[in-house]
C-alpha cells in the first residue's frame, strides 16, 4: 500500500467519530433522497405507471350470458385492433350484507357487488394485484377490490340473504385492479352457486387495443368488439379512460404535496451530507498541516482527504440505498392508495442516481474543504486550534465575553457562545433545523387542511340516515354498466310520507332529503347533476368558498368546476334543461365539494316546477340533544317500514381513504424529515465536541460535573434551535399557503381562507418551539457521550 493509502486508512480508522458521522450523514441523505426521488417519480403519471404495470384493460366489456357463449366471446379476442384479451369470465351482481363484527357495525349496508369468476389474478391483461391475503381457491371464498366500499377485513364474512340458502362468502383477501374490472373475484366454479334462480350469469371480457388513447379510438374499439360478438350480446363496456380521469383528479390534487415533500427531502439530504463532510474535513486541518510538514503536496492532501471522506460515505450510501428502499416500499404503497392506483415499484434508476449523486456531492464537498485546507500555509494549518487570531476568533471571543456576563448559569453561557466560533458549521446546522421546522409546520398545516377537506366531505354526516332498503348504485361503480341485472330494488318512497313520518317521530330536530337528476346546461359539456333538497338543508355540512348557501327556490350553489366550465359567477343566472323543461337559478354561492369534482348544482327541490323535482332517496336527520340515536333509528325504521325505507343511526355516508392515506403519508414523511434534521444537528454536534474535546477536558478538570457538561452542549444548540424555529415556521407556513391552493387548482377546486387558516396561536407557538426541540434532541446523545468521556483522555486530545 502506498504511503498515501496508509494515511487514508489510518485516517478512517483513527478518526472513527468523523468517519461514523460522515457515514451516518451519507446514510440518512441517501435514505431521504431515495424516498424523495421515488415520490417524485411516483408522482409522475401514477395511473399510467400502474396501468402499464398491471397491463390494465383498455375495455372491460360485459355480455349477456343468455345471448352468447364462452367460445363466441373468446373469438372476439381477434376483433380489429385487439392486441391482447383475457376472458371470458362469468359475472354477476350480488347484494351482500356484512356480518356484524369487529370491523362492521350492526345495520351497516353494502353497495351491490359486481363479481367476476376468475381462477388467477394474472393472465396477460388486468393483472390484479393482491394487496392483502390470498386469491380464492375454492367456492365460498372471495377477494374484494380495494375500491369497494366496505369496512370488512380479511377473515370477515359476507352474507347473501337474497340467494337460496343464504350462502356466506369468506373474504380471503383484498386486491386492486387499476382498470376496476370488478368489485370482487371468486373462483369460476363458485359462480353457479351464487346465481339467483331463474337468472343467467353474464360474461366479462378484458381487452387491450393498439389504439386506445382517445375517446374516439375507444368508441371504435368498442364497436369492433360489439361487431365481433353476437348481435345484442354486449350489454355494457367500461373504457379505461374513465378510470384514468378519476385517478388523474386525485393525482392532480396530491401532486403538489408529493413534489413539495420530495424536494424537501432532496434538499435536506444535500445539506446534511455537505455540512457534515465539510465539517469532518475541517476538523482535520491540523493533521493536514502535519502531512504537509512531512512533505505531502497539496494535491496529495486533497486526494487523501477526498478518499478519507468517500470510504465511510460509500458504506453509508450502500446502507442508505437498502434502508431507503425498505422505507420507500410502504410509503409508495400509501402513495398508491392516495392516488387510487397500485403502488409503483421503486425505479432502479432512482437508486443509481441517488447513490451516484450522493457520492459526487460528498466528493465535491470534501474536495472543496480539502483544497481550502491544503492551500493553508503549513504553519497556519499546524497552529489551527492552538492559537487565536483572525476576525472569526475575535468575534467569537467577544461573544464569549458577552455570554460570560449574562445572568445565566456559567455552563449555559459557555454553550451559548459556541456557535459563533464556527459560524459556517452553525449555519449548516441552522439550515437543517429550518428545514425540519418548515417540514413539520407544512405537515401540520396539511393535516389541518385535510381535516377541513374531510369535514367538507362529511357534509352528509347525520345522526340518522334514512334510505330505501338498499342505497342506490353509486355513480361510476363497475357494477353500474354492463353487469347482469341486479335483483329488483325498492324505489324511493313518497317524500310527503317520509316527511310526515319524520315530523311525527319524537326527537327529530331537523331533516332534509336529497334527490339528483342529470340535466344539460348551455355551454357545459356533458351532463350536469342537480341535487335537489327537500326540507331544511341549512344545517348540512356543506362548506362555502364564497357567497352563501341557497335560501329558497330559485337560488343555487355550485362548485368551482361548474362555475368555471359554465363561465358564471356569483349573482349570475343559469338555465338548465330537465327533461325538456328549462329551469333558471341564480348562483348565490360557491360550494366546496371535492366528491365528484364535476359539474354540479345544489338547489331547493321547489326550484323545479311542481311535480318535476327528483324524488329524494336519502334523508338526513338531526336529533334533539339527548335523544338516543339507536332507539330513534329503530322506532323510525318501524314507522318507515311500510314505505320500504329504513333508518340507520350515526351513518357517515362518505369516507375518504385517500385523505387517510395522505395523512398517514404526511406523518411518515414528516417524521423522516424531522429525524433527518435531528441527525443533521447530531452530526454537527458530534464534530463540534470532537473539536472541543480538550476544552471539555479542561472544564471537567476544573470541576464541571457531567450534568453541567450536558448543559454546555445543549446550550450550544439553543440559539440555533430558536432561530431555526423562528425562520422555519414562516417558511413552513409559506409552503403550506402556496401548496394548498396549488393542490386545489390542480384538482379544479378553490380552497377558502378557512381551509388555510388551520393554525391557532398555541399551535404556532408549539411549532416555533419545534426548532428548539429538533436541536435539543439532536444534541442530547452527543452531550451525554461528552459528559461520560474520561477527563484524562480528553486532556490528552489534540
Amino acid at each position, binding site marked *: 500500500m502506498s504511503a498515501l493509502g496508509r494515511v487514508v486508512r489510518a485516517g478512517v480508522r483513527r478518526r472513527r467519530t468523523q468517519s461514523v458521522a460522515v457515514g451516518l450523514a451519507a446514510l440518512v441523505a441517501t435514505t431521504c433522497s431515495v424516498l424523495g426521488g421515488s415520490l417524485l417519480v411516483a408522482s409522475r403519471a401514477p395511473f399510467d405507471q400502474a396501468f402499464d404495470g398491471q397491463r390494465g384493460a383498455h375495455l372491460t366489456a360485459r355480455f349477456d350470458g343468455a345471448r352468447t357463449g364462452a367460445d363466441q366471446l373468446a373469438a372476439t379476442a381477434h376483433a380489429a385492433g385487439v392486441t391482447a384479451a383475457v376472458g371470458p369470465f362469468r359475472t354477476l351482481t350480488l347484494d351482500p350484507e356484512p356480518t356484524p363484527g369487529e370491523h362492521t357495525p350492526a345495520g351497516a349496508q353494502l353497495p351491490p357487488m359486481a363479481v367476476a369468476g376468475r381462477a388467477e389474478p394474472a393472465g396477460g391483461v388486468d393483472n390484479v394485484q393482491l394487496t392483502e391475503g390470498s386469491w380464492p381457491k375454492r367456492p365460498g371464498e372471495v377477494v374484494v377490490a380495494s375500491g369497494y366500499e366496505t369496512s370488512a377485513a380479511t377473515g370477515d364474512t359476507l352474507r347473501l340473504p337474497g340467494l337460496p340458502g343464504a350462502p356466506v362468502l369468506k373474504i380471503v383477501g383484498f386486491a386492486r385492479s387499476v382498470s376496476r374490472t370488478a368489485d370482487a373475484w371468486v373462483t369460476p366454479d363458485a359462480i353457479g352457486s351464487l346465481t339467483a334462480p331463474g337468472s343467467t350469469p353474464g360474461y366479462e371480457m378484458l381487452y387491450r387495443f393498439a389504439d386506445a388513447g382517445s375517446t374516439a379510438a375507444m368508441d371504435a374499439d368498442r364497436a369492433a368488439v360489439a361487431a365481433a360478438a353476437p348481435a345484442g350480446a354486449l350489454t355494457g363496456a367500461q373504457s379505461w379512460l374513465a378510470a384514468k380521469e378519476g385517478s388523474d383528479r386525485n393525482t392532480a390534487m396530491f401532486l403538489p404535496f408529493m413534489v413539495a415533500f420530495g424536494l424537501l427531502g432532496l434538499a435536506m439530504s444535500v445539506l446534511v451530507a455537505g455540512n457534515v463532510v465539510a465539517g469532518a474535513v475541517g476538523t482535520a486541518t491540523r493533521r493536514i498541516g502535519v502531512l504537509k510538514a512531512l512533505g505531502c503536496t497539496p494535491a496529495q492532501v486533497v486526494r487523501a482527504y477526498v478518499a478519507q471522506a468517500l470510504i465511510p460515505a460509500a458504506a453509508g450510501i450502500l446502507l442508505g440505498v437498502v434502508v431507503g428502499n425498505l422505507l420507500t416500499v410502504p410509503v409508495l404503497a400509501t402513495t398508491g392508495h392516495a392516488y387510487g392506483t397500485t403502488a409503483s415499484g421503486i425505479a432502479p434508476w432512482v437508486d443509481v442516481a441517488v447513490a451516484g449523486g450522493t457520492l459526487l456531492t460528498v466528493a465535491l464537498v470534501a474536495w472543496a474543504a480539502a483544497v481550502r485546507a491544503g492551500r493553508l500555509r503549513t504553519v497556519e494549518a499546524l497552529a489551527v486550534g492552538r492559537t487565536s487570531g483572525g476576525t472569526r476568533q475575535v468575534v467569537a471571543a467577544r461573544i464569549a*465575553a458577552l455570554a460570560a456576563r449574562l445572568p445565566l448559569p456559567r455552563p449555559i453561557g459557555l454553550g451559548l457562545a459556541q456557535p459563533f466560533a464556527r459560524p459556517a458549521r452553525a449555519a449548516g446546522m441552522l439550515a437543517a433545523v429550518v428545514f425540519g421546522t418548515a417540514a413539520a409546520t407544512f405537515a401540520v398545516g396539511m393535516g389541518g387542511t385535510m381535516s377541513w377537506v374531510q369535514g367538507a366531505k362529511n357534509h352528509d354526516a347525520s345522526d340518522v340516515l334514512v334510505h330505501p332498503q338498499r342505497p342506490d348504485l353509486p355513480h361510476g361503480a363497475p357494477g353500474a354498466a354492463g353487469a347482469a341485472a341486479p335483483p329488483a330494488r325498492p324505489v324511493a318512497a313518497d317524500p310527503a310520507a317520509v316527511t310526515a313520518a319524520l315530523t311525527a317521530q319524537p326527537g327529530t330536530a331537523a331533516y332534509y332529503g336529497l334527490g339528483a337528476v342529470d340535466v344539460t346546461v348551455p355551454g357545459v359539456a356533458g351532463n350536469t347533476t342537480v341535487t335537489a333538497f327537500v326540507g331544511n338543508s341549512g344545517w348540512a355540512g356543506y362548506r362555502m368558498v364564497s357567497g352563501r348557501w341557497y335560501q329558497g327556490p330559485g337560488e343555487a350553489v355550485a362548485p368551482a368546476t361548474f362555475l368555471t366550465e359554465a363561465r358564471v359567477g356569483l349573482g349570475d343566472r343559469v338555465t338548465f334543461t330537465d327533461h325538456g323543461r328549462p329551469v333558471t337559478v341564480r348562483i348565490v354561492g360557491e360550494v366546496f365539494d371535492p366528491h365528484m369534482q364535476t359539474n354540479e348544482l345544489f338547489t331547493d327541490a321547489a326550484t323545479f316546477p311542481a311535480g318535476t323535482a327528483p324524488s329524494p332517496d336519502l334523508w338526513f336527520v338531526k336529533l334533539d340533544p339527548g335523544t338516543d340515536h339507536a332507539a330513534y333509528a329503530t322506532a323510525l325504521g318501524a314507522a318507515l317500514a311500510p314505505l320500504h325505507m329504513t333508518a340507520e343511526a350515526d351513518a357517515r355516508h362518505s369516507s375518504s381513504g385517500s385523505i387517510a392515506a395522505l395523512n398517514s403519508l404526511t406523518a411518515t414523511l414528516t417524521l423522516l424529515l424531522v429525524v433527518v434534521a435531528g441527525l443533521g444537528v447530531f452530526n454537527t454536534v458530534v464534530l463540534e465536541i470532537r473539536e472541543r474535546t480538550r476544552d471539555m477536558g479542561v*472544564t471537567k478538570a476544573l470541576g464541571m460535573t457531567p450534568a453541567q457538561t450536558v448543559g454546555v452542549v445543549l446550550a450550544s444548540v439553543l440559539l440555533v434551535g430558536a432561530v431555526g424555529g423562528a425562520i422555519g415556521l414562516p417558511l413552513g407556513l409559506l409552503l403550506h399557503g402556496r401548496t394548498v391552493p396549488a393542490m386545489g387548482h390542480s384538482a379544479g377546486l378553490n380552497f377558502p381562507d378557512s381551509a388555510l387558516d388551520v393554525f391557532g396561536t398555541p399551535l404556532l407557538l408549539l411549532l416555533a418551539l419545534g426548532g428548539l426541540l429538533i436541536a435539543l434532541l439532536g444534541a442530547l446523545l452527543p452531550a451525554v457521550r461528552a459528559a461520560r468521556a474520561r477527563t484524562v483522555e480528553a486532556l490528552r486530545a489534540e
Partner: protein
Amino acid sequence: MSDPVIELSGVGRRYEGARAALDGVDLSVRAGESVAVLGPSGSGKSTLLNLVAGLDRPSSGTVTVAGVRVDRLNETGSARYRRGTIGMVFQFFNLLDDLTVADNVVLAGELAGVPRGEARRRAAELLESLGIDRHARAHPGRLSGGERQRVAVARALMNRPALLLADEPTGALDSASGEDVKELFRELHEDGQTVLLVTHDLTLARDCATRTVRMRDGRIESDTAVAA
C-alpha cells in the same frame, strides 16, 4: 505534626494489556508540604497525579485527599471534589482560548458556585498578586508562555484549594519564563500552600519542594527531604 492532606495506600493502576503504571504505591503528604515527584517518562508520575486529582481511578489501594476517599467518587463527586479541594496546573496551560484571562480565572469560581461578583473580585486579586492584572481583558493567545502559566496558577488558586497539583509546570516554557514560574511556586510554598508537582526539572524540585519522591517503573524508588 499536621494531618496528611494526601494519603495513598497500596495504590496500583493497571491498564489492559500493559504492565502496571503504578504498583503498590504508598505516599503521604502533609499540609504545607511541597512535594516534587521526579522520574523518567513512563515511571508513573502522571498516573499518580491523575489519581490524586480524581481524573482516574486506581485498580487497587486507596486514595484519600483532605479526608475524601477519592477512589470511591463517581463522576459528579469527582467534579465537586476537584472544584473544592484541588487546583490544577498543566504543562500546556489548558486555558480556554475563547475566554479572556479574567474569565478563565472566574470560570473556576463560577463552576464551584461562587457568586459572580465575588468570583470577579477574587480573580482580580489573584491576577494582581501574580502580576498579570494588566492582561485581565486579553485573550490567552496573546500572552507569553510564562504569563499563561501564571493565569493557569491563578485559576488553580481561585477556590483556595487545600492542594495544588502541577504537571510539568515549566515543561513548555523558555528558561526566563520557567524561572518566573519557579519563583511563583516558591512563593506559594512559603505562603503555606500544599503542593504536589510532577516534573523533570530538577532545579524546580530543588528550589520549590520540601520533599522529592523519585519513581521508576510504577514504584517509589526514593522519598527524601530537600535540604534547606
